[in-house]
């Protein structure tokens, strides 16, 4: 099978997550997740992967000069990894007791949370069980993998101003769509 999605998640206390968030001490001085997780009602570390075969197939397509097919498979696989992450978020949230309104996930390497936090995240979650390993440069193998934390809580904790220092170089501003989605949740 080309894509063999596997995922793992693990509930974690705010205190234990604090250490994962701090990571190697390289986060930006202020990051949205810092203010969010401290006010959360539920937290879980997660990792998802599509496996090695899909990356191999993309490489094979490029090697055999099927560039268009290779590029399209690459984007589809990236999108599928995102979908797998969303599905883990739903699974975790649906198992929680009532009392929270919304959820959002965050990944090391985004929005002020330094990518080196992958080290502590991996030590705690051990996603090696689903075949993901971490290199010295904090790159996950297989390539089409995503790691992070799922945060559940009241809607208001997820609303922030996107004017952190690092936002000035952000090209995507994806937080805006994510916040709008939260506002629309009933």
């Amino acid at each position, binding site marked *: 099978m080309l894509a063999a999605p596997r995922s793992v998640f693990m509930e974690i206390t705010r205190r234990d997550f604090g250490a994962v968030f701090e990571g190697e001490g390289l986060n930006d001085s202020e990051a949205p997740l810092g203010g969010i997780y401290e006010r959360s009602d539920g937290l879980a570390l997660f990792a998802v992967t599509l496996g090695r075969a899909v990356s191999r197939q993309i490489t094979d397509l490029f090697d055999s*000069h099927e*560039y268009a097919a290779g*590029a399209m498979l690459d984007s589809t696989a990236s999108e599928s990894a995102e979908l797998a992450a969303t599905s883990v978020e739903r699974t975790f949230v649906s198992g929680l007791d009532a009392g929270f309104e919304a959820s959002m996930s965050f990944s090391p*390497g985004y929005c002020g949370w330094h990518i080196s936090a992958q080290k502590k995240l991996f030590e705690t979650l051990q996603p090696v069980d689903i075949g993901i390993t971490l290199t010295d440069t904090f790159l996950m193998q297989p390539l089409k993998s995503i790691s992070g934390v799922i945060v559940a809580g009241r809607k208001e904790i997820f609303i922030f101003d996107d004017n952190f220092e690092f936002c000035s*170089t952000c090209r995507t501003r994806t937080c805006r769509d994510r916040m709008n989605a939260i506002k629309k949740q009933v």
Partner: protein
Amino acid sequence: MDILEELSASLEAGDTAAVTRLTTEAVAQGLAPEIITGHGLVAGMNVVGQKFKAHEIFLPDVLLAARAMHAAMEILKPHLVGKQLPTAGKVVIGTVQGDLHDIGKNLVSIMLRGAGFEVIDLGKDVAPERFVDEAEKTGADAIGMSALLTTTMPMMKEVVALAKKRGLYGKTRILVGGAPLTAEYAEEIGADAYCFDGTSAVDRMREFAGG
């Protein structure tokens, strides 16, 4: 329409079957491979590049044209033995050590090849010495480096330092690209150009080759 115009148009359309047929016919008609390449293939690829830049066509269109170009070059190869095709310039390219993201780098290579540059692709997880050794050995006009993570970006600085040490800096231009990079970072580490995408890589390489 003469055969070269037809070839160029079929390449633009990404029609590998027609490009294969027309290239074979052009060879049979006795046209020189360098004429077929320059006036048929590269001419078509240039139009593709311009249309992509103007957002008139999409990436898969460019990639289909590139596949057709590759098929034509395979037919021409045996006729080029011992001949030197005129190239727009030579680029040694790769993803820096510690990084395995290569889609962006592959796309840039395809665009550069399409624009008539010779590309020596070292793959991914490339050590600084390999970039510089290969550039020295082949007399490349430029080294192109890709990095997708903030943790692998610093490798680019090491390549620049090594190029300086070996006396290549200034002669061999250094191009960098990848999502977390900025023009400021490129300038800070002493690279000659930051490229947002393959089209800007072609533009910058043409500038360097022209001046």
